């Protein structure tokens, strides 16, 4: 059992506060992904869990035990670094077995565990090679092997795939997911990559400037973002946001007028607005469509044809940039003026402070 829990954890480097009070619960066996813009403190938080950075204040528990001040080696965690950090003078099997050897684990035992890990990671034939003689993906596998043999309760990954090319990244992504299913250990994974976060995570933690913005399953974050930051951070291309105003409220329906467009009736489902409120209307590119009559008019600026789909970059009323995900064979071309539909059940409303009032009714 290795759940990880953080309580009001803070970190400052001198006068600079980098982590400003984080509460988080990662359950046993969960695959938890940290995402956030560069410099928001993802690596720092991970390194604090690993014990490589001191925790300035707050409490860290791993497997129910207080680990706030425990040295890295006694936390039962293993970490895979972005740079792999393989020992260049040791062969693959020495790299994998080094920690065990230093811990005076019996030779036969080491051999068995190294064999198990190298088989699992398809490194059997490379065991005598030095890291310098391996490809990026193979090095990454060795780094993972080194983590596996220690049989840790918690695996920590800091952008492990960011140095690999696109194809290899896709392959390693599925391999890592497979590994998680096989080992059933708790894994905490830092990434920049939307797709990695969405596809691998049981739970995504969105960080911004040292604070947690939202925690939830990938689909929860995608469809029910708590604020504009999360709404725009998760998803690619970004959620479209257009300024709007509440024109009338009748019961549970808000009538919202989009700047330069027509009226839209949105069910509030408990959300509170009053007439005259300035709000932001958010809708994902795939939920908008081009049709003969829509809520607003926009001009096509650019059509990115990806084959399976076409990304229409449009300029809406008042110059608002809007992206619509359309059919691969969509006929629109730059210069065309089109009307856009916005189904009410897909629309999100955010108040002036960026906090969600209503999320779409999709989930």
């Amino acid at each position, binding site marked *: 059992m290795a759940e990880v829990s953080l309580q009001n954890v803070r970190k400052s480097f001198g006068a600079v506060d980098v982590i400003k009070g984080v509460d988080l619960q990662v359950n046993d066996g969960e695959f938890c992904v940290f995402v956030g813009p560069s410099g928001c403190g993802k690596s720092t938080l991970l390194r604090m869990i690993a014990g490589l950075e001191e925790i300035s204040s707050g409490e860290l528990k791993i497997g129910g035990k207080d680990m706030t001040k425990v040295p890295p*080696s006694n936390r039962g965690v293993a970490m895979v670094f972005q740079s792999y950090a393989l020992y260049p003078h040791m062969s693959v099997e020495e790299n994998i077995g080094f920690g065990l050897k230093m811990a005076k684990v019996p030779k036969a035992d080491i051999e068995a565990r190294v064999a198990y890990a190298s088989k699992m990671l398809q490194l059997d034939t490379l065991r005598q090679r030095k890291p*310098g003689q391996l490809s990026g993906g193979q090095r990454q596998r060795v780094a993972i092997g080194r983590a596996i043999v220690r049989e840790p309760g918690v695996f920590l990954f800091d952008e492990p795939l960011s140095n690999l090319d696109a194809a290899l990244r896709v392959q390693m992504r599925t391999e890592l997911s497979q590994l998680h299913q096989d080992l059933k250990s708790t894994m905490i994974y830092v990434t920049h990559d939307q797709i990695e976060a969405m596809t691998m995570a049981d739970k995504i933690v969105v960080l911004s400037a040292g604070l947690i913005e939202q925690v939830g399953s990938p689909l929860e974050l995608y469809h029910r973002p708590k604020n504009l930051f999360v709404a725009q951070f998760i998803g690619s291309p970004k959620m479209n946001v257009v300024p709007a105003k509440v024109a009338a409220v009748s019961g549970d329906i808000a009538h919202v007028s989009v700047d330069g467009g027509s009226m839209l009736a949105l069910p509030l489902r408990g959300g509170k607005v009053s007439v005259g409120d300035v709000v932001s209307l958010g809708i994902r590119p795939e939920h908008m469509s081009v049709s003969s009559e829509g809520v607003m008019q926009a001009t096509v600026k650019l059509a990115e044809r990806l084959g399976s789909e076409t990304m229409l970059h449009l300029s809406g009323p008042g110059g608002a940039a809007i992206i619509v995900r359309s059919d691969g064979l969509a006929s629109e071309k730059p210069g065309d003026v089109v009307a856009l539909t916005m189904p009410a059940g897909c629309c999100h409303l955010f108040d002036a402070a960026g906090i969600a009032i209503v999320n779409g009714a999709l989930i």
Partner: protein
Amino acid sequence: MFPTAIEKTSKLTQTTYKAALPIAVLLWLLPLFAVALTSVRSIEDLNRGNFWGWPTSLNFVQNYTEVFTRSPMALFMLNSVIITLFAVAGTLILSCMAGYALAKYHFRGNLVLFSIFIAGNFVPFQILMIPVRTIMIDWIPLYDTVWALVLFHTAFQTGFCTLFMRNFIKQMPDALIEAARIEGITELKIFWHVVLPLVRPALAALAVLEFTFIWNDYFWSLVLVQSDEARPVTAGLQALKGQWLASWQLISAGSLIAAIPPVLIFFLMQRHFIAGLTLGATKE
């Protein structure tokens, strides 16, 4: 790229280069060659003023034996070996550990300490002559023993070596050490099993350099040692001067003998200069 590879320059430059190179090498080796020739001359040759011509007789065996019979040359060599080996070992051990600490541990005063190491290199060693001699006589009673030289060289050379090692180790990725730390490897074992193997090329280079420095030292051999029992070979050569006449043939022979160990060490350590040992440790 600068300088331009010689193959890519004009014909004229290439020809000049190819002609000038052997000449430069010859000029460079000429004094050494003259010393080698002198070391096999007879004393009569020298008395007659035949300094540059071909020796009239080849006294190789006689001169080189005489070096050892006329002076306690074997003892001097032994002293030099003791002094150099201990001083080089001490210097390397200390500077490697100090360099590692300065490069990879964050502690208060780290930078100040490092600055002191750097500043120490700018002290002209001549001004240390009187104080060091006094220390060795009054405070650490090692004056006139090989250990005085071992201690002094170790202390003095550690400054430069620490600077060198610190900068070398600084380039090693922190992640390597952190990875080991998470694996539960103790700090000493990290130093021994991870850091040391990776700084081997630097250590080998330093070892050769320091061996040459310390072996060739003349100044401190004069300052800190008086008796033959503790004298290293550089200062010992003067015992071959002869009483009335300078015995250049013996001094030359002695000099060549004294020069052998540094040359040997260079060729011995050469195979350790493996560049790029850290290649593949981390992403480029």
